[in-house]
């Protein structure tokens, strides 16, 4: 069979097994079966589906189930009660913590977008040789492959009471006393977020920009557009898919975070992730699960809205 061009096979009105006997027939049937793209597709996707089922779908189901359970100080017990949700929605802490989470996400989004867009724009349109583009792009992405925790820790010598920032500002005479709000504050939390996640904006925006047909920009200039007009009327609209993908990354990473907020605020600020991790630390799993369900619903809602503006599979 191997010598026959594969594409001829479907045109034969009757498959003619060469030789007699059950095994050959079964082999041909097997091959015909494999030509069914639905079946072979599912077979190829089977390992992926198993991982997603066991470690994504089942955990989500488990969290939803446990969010209705009850808890004592030491253990949790199966039940079907709305106490966890009732507590969650009646506690003023919940609302302030959710507000805080949105605040972090919004501010981080603005900064990562502005910085990420500028950096990607410089790389895509101002660096002229491809070699330099690749080299500088790699330089921007390397920190992504190193440890987030280490990158957070590395702000301490900068922002601390006796850190570089304070001592520099004092020596310049800008301030007389060390600024207390540099470390362990909302400022340092957002600084760390921007530091960690700007890459997630740079990469997709740069990717989209590299695919913009350069003749469109030439055309804009030829028609008398200024550099700024070309930017706002040609480049930004064409870069929108990249911006959307970057936004999805940044918003979800910030909303789901708990470690950056804990570490950079010195446990003085809270977001939803910390609320969950605090409950976990106290073994209050049902209440953690209820908060998790609300957080997941919020994140998925935001992503669903963002996905309406971009077809991820097409844009990669």
């Amino acid at each position, binding site marked *: 069979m191997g010598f026959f061009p594969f594409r001829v096979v479907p045109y034969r009105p009757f498959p003619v097994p060469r030789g007699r006997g059950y095994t050959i027939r079964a082999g041909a049937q097997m091959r015909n079966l494999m030509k069914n*793209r639905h079946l072979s597709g599912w077979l190829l996707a089977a390992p992926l589906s198993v991982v997603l089922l066991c470690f994504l779908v089942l955990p*989500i189901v488990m969290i939803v189930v446990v969010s209705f359970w009850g808890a004592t100080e030491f253990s949790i017990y199966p039940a079907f009660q709305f106490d966890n949700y009732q507590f969650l929605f009646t506690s003023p802490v919940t609302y302030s913590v959710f507000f805080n989470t949105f605040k972090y996400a919004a501010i981080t989004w603005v900064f990562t977008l502005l910085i990420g867009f500028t950096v990607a724009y410089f790389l895509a349109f101002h660096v002229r040789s491809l070699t330099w583009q690749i080299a500088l792009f790699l330089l921007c992405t390397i920190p992504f492959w190193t440890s987030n925790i280490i990158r957070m820790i590395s702000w301490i010598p900068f922002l601390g009471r006796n850190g570089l920032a304070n001592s520099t500002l004092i020596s310049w005479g800008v301030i007389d006393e060390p600024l207390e709000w540099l470390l362990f504050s909302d400022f340092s939390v957002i600084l760390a977020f921007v530091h960690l996640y700007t890459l997630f904006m740079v990469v997709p925006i740069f990717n989209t920009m590299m695919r913009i047909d350069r003749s469109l920009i030439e055309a804009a200039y030829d028609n008398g557009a200024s550099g700024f007009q070309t930017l706002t009327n040609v480049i930004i609209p064409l870069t929108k898919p990249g911006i959307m993908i970057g936004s999805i990354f940044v918003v979800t990473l910030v909303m789901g975070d708990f470690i950056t907020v804990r570490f950079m605020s010195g446990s003085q600020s809270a977001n939803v992730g910390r609320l969950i991790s605090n409950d976990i630390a106290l073994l209050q799993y049902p209440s953690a699960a209820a908060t998790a369900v609300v957080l997941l619903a919020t994140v998925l809602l935001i992503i669903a809205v963002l996905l309406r503006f971009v077809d991820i599979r097409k844009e990669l």
Partner: protein
Amino acid sequence: MTGKRPRSFYVLAAFFSLFLLFLYGPTLTIAILSFQGPQGGLTFPMRGVSTHWFRDLFEQQAVGDIWGSFARSLVLGLMVMVTTVVVSVMGGLAFRKRFAGSSVIFYLVITSLVIPSILISLGVGLIFSQSGLNVHWSTSGYGSQLTWTLPFGLLIMFAVFNRFDPSFEEAARDQGASNWQTVRHVVLPIIAPSLIGVALFGFTLSYDEFARTLLTAGSYNTLPLEIYGMTTNVTTPVIFALGTLTTVFSLLVIAVFLCAVWVQARRRARLGSDAGKGMV
């Protein structure tokens, strides 16, 4: 786009340099501070220069089980890397067939990417504890990390197959290659450089993963968990020394992968086409 550079170039170049400084400055600072003298603290000034804090890392009692956790992170990273490459390639091939129900899997992949990490940790931890299983980094931790690395691997495969010219495969089939031969001798060699990229993502994302392993690693910590533990109770530059070492290790890993891509590109350029040289 030729001739003298516009003024905006210099403004943007300055901005870009500041961005790089912002990206790398803090890491360089702790690299310098990790060479603090024995009396030195967590910030400047430097009180002498020594390798005291690096030596401390090699003394078990000073910092806990650093080397054990490093070995675990290394093994786990390799496990996740291999799985990510194999499963992503298979998944990428599957999605090209546009099989019925593929959009369900696709949205699950997106969910896996955007779900807050602590939810995976919590959910997997709950499943294991409620069914009486012990969480362990090589079972529950391994699976939890895959939910983070596989979406990246698959997104890369989507990008690769979007640019893939199917006429290569058709040519192979017209020459009588079987399905498997087409994949093995045509598709895989063409996508090989991107597979190195997938492997790099698989390893480094696993090696640095924290939140998804928090409740799923069990009693033996991975390195990020160990470092996280240190942030709460270690107040000496030993943590900077550890940070510097693990960053250097990450950089080495990245360099190895980049070299592999470079070598492969050169080999390709040198060997070029093997058309007309007989069967492979």
